[in-house]
């Protein structure tokens, strides 16, 4: 009796094992029956061009692949991971998801995103030809690619040319280093009474990519493996530089959540933030002031480390047929056609640089929209945003961000604030295994 139950459980276990290993490794070669896949996207949770463009791309995909139906599911970017997770828990397995980079490691290790080299083999290599090498790194965890960068951009310095002129500065020569930023900001403050400089780094909805970009441009890093290093020398120095900007008055003393609005209203000289807001800013500035864009400032001669914000696409399906459909969708959404749409209509960066000079794709648009050029040039130095690992990754990131905000905006010793937070957060990191 016991032997029979034991046997049954072994057989069941074996079947389960083979089923799971089968499901995670082999997708079918082609679609021969109608299949529906779900696509979780936060661009669909916004009104306007981002939404319409995404819908258009999905419709075009369905036109080209009549057997595949895409079910779009929208959730705002700060809720999309909870949404994916809730659906997995409830048994509604998502197929393709657009997730933000901060959740990269979680998606790879916990959500069960497929490592694309294993999953798609030769097709992956063929598909990624022509993609920026730095760009592919953005979605890598432990050397394997889990996410293909889909909508992403880097921090750029948007600035108000009118304020520059009023302050006696030359808008054709924007600041290139942090020292120059300080000078320019103080000039704007004194001569026009408006605010000088502000980074979108510490607001309630801001990610940590601007902060990380600044830190990494100074040679620092927020973590090395499982060890937190955001309080160590080069990272802390970068924060001290920001603190100096604050103390001197160059860094605007405004409500951290109102940065975009203050810049849009023409009350801020320089705004370091994602280039994805360019379109909104152009509309707000229309007829009132002149918007210009420059690369992010550097620490003296050190090369800058522009870090990615935005999202990557992940394949989460477990069923072989759906996996094939999901992969087809993913290839489509990261094709030359798609990046042309994404850059020209949604306002992000293309992962494929060959389309920039190709008249069939982006050339004409880029020529007509010179504001994107500084951002494209920065792609050469694209540095991957550092995601945090472990089950407590979000708590750790919170602590780091709060500490950095306190270091820059508070009254105490900045290095001390960072150090205290690093000590508190370290136990929450996974232990070295």
């Amino acid at each position, binding site marked *: 009796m016991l032997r029979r139950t034991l046997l049954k459980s072994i057989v069941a276990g074996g079947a389960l094992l083979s089923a799971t290993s089968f499901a995670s490794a082999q997708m079918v070669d082609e679609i021969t029956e109608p299949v529906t896949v779900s696509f979780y996207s936060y661009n669909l949770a916004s009104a306007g061009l981002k939404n319409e463009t995404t819908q258009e791309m999905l419709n075009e995909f369905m036109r080209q692949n009549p057997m595949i139906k895409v079910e779009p599911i929208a959730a705002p970017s700060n809720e999309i*991971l*909870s949404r994916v*997770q809730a659906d*997995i*828990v409830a048994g509604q397995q998502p197929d393709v998801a657009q997730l933000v980079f901060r959740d990269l490691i*979680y998606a790879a290790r*916990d*959500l*069960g995103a497929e490592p694309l080299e294993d999953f798609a083999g030769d097709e992956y290599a063929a598909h990624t030809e022509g993609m920026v090498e730095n760009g592919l790194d953005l979605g890598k965890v432990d050397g394997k690619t889990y996410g293909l960068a889909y909508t992403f951009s880097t921090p750029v310095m948007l600035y108000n040319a009118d304020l520059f002129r009023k302050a006696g500065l030359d808008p054709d020569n924007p600041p290139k280093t942090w020292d120059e930023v300080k000078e320019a900001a103080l000039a704007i403050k004194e001569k026009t009474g*408006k*605010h000088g400089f502000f980074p979108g780094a*510490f*607001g*309630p*909805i801001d990610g940590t990519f601007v902060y990380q970009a600044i830190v990494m441009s100074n040679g620092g890093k927020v973590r090395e493996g499982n060890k937190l290093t955001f309080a160590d020398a080069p990272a802390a120095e970068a924060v001290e530089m920001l603190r100096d900007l604050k103390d001197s008055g160059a860094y605007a*003393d*405004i*409500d*951290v*959540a*109102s940065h975009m*609005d*203050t810049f849009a*209203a023409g*009350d801020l000289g320089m705004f370091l933030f994602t280039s994805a807001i360019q379109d909104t800013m152009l509309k707000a500035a229309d007829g009132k002031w002149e918007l210009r864009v420059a690369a992010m400032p550097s620490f003296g001669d050190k090369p800058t480390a522009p870090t990615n914000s935005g999202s990557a696409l992940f394949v989460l399906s477990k069923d072989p047929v759906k996996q094939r459909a999901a992969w087809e969708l993913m290839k489509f959404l990261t094709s030359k056609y798609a990046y042309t749409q994404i850059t020209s209509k949604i306002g992000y960066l293309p992962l494929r640089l060959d389309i920039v000079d190709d008249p069939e794709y982006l050339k004409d648009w880029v020529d007509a929209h010179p504001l994107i050029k500084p951002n494209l040039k920065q792609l050469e130095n694209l540095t991957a945003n550092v995601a945090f690992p472990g*089950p*407590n990754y*979000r*708590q750790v990131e*919170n602590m780091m961000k*709060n500490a950095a*905000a*306190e270091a820059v*905006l*508070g009254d105490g010793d900045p290095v001390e604030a960072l150090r*205290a937070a690093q000590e*508190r957060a370290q136990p*929450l990191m996974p232990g070295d295994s």
Partner: protein
Amino acid sequence: MTDVLHQAEAVAAPRVARTGRFTIAPWLYLAPALIILFVWIYLPLIQAGQLSFYQWNMLPTSTPRFVGLDNYRNLLTLPEMGIAVRNTVWYIVGLFPLSVIIPVAVAILTQELSGPLRNLYRSLIFVPMIVAPIVAAILWRWLLNEDYGLVNQVIAGLGFSKVGFLQDPKIALWTLVWMTGWKLIGFSTLLLSAANSTINPAYTEAARMDGASRWQIIRDIRLPLLAPTILLLSMMTILFGAQWSFVYINALTGGGPLQSTTNIFYLMWEYGFQTLSAGWSAAAGMLTFTAFGAIALVCLWLMKRLAVYDD
């Protein structure tokens, strides 16, 4: 004058006799509410109670790991916990005038005005309630902004220096209290007006004929008979003050600047619910539930002792 009140109390008819046998009737009436509350609120709470001792992200691909009291310890030792508790007290204290005192004043004062004006004022006070909370947050953020906000323009026009309503750590919390309270005035006024209008005018007429002054009528008849509602509103302010301000903290300050606007509820949200770790989240939920539950029990006990009913 006070014999009017005594009369009101004496009018109480003998209470419904306590039934010795078990009657099914009340349970049938209670059934719909109890079933819904059990299935959709208490069942998850019990699950949360169990989950709070594990580390798990709820995905079927991972196994829960028993961690004992770690989740609770992590939450209670958060550096922001001290500030969050202090701020919570300030939120509650600050909301009281807006959620209880002013609405009581409005309900009583407008009772003395004639019909159309009374309705107009009460309706205008109610208008904030029709605005969605997130929209109210954005509107006040604009109005209070230092650079392009109407309020600061007026302040500057009067000769004072501009106020950093949302970026000054000393003021930000009171700004959020104002925003939360702004919407609540209409809510409380509505409830109090409804309660006020059920006060039997016979009492007030009798008292007036006895020569009682307006203030005496208010003090000895209206206020005591409004007491159940006032107590309910007070209890709600204490229990939910932190929760009501959550939407504003979440949308506008994220607990900042420099943790000056965070409170218990937001802290639990930030570290418990936003982090996808079911363990932290469940522990945070259990902590808020037990803490506020204890306070609620005290309040309910007080309510039973202090409330005067017209029976």
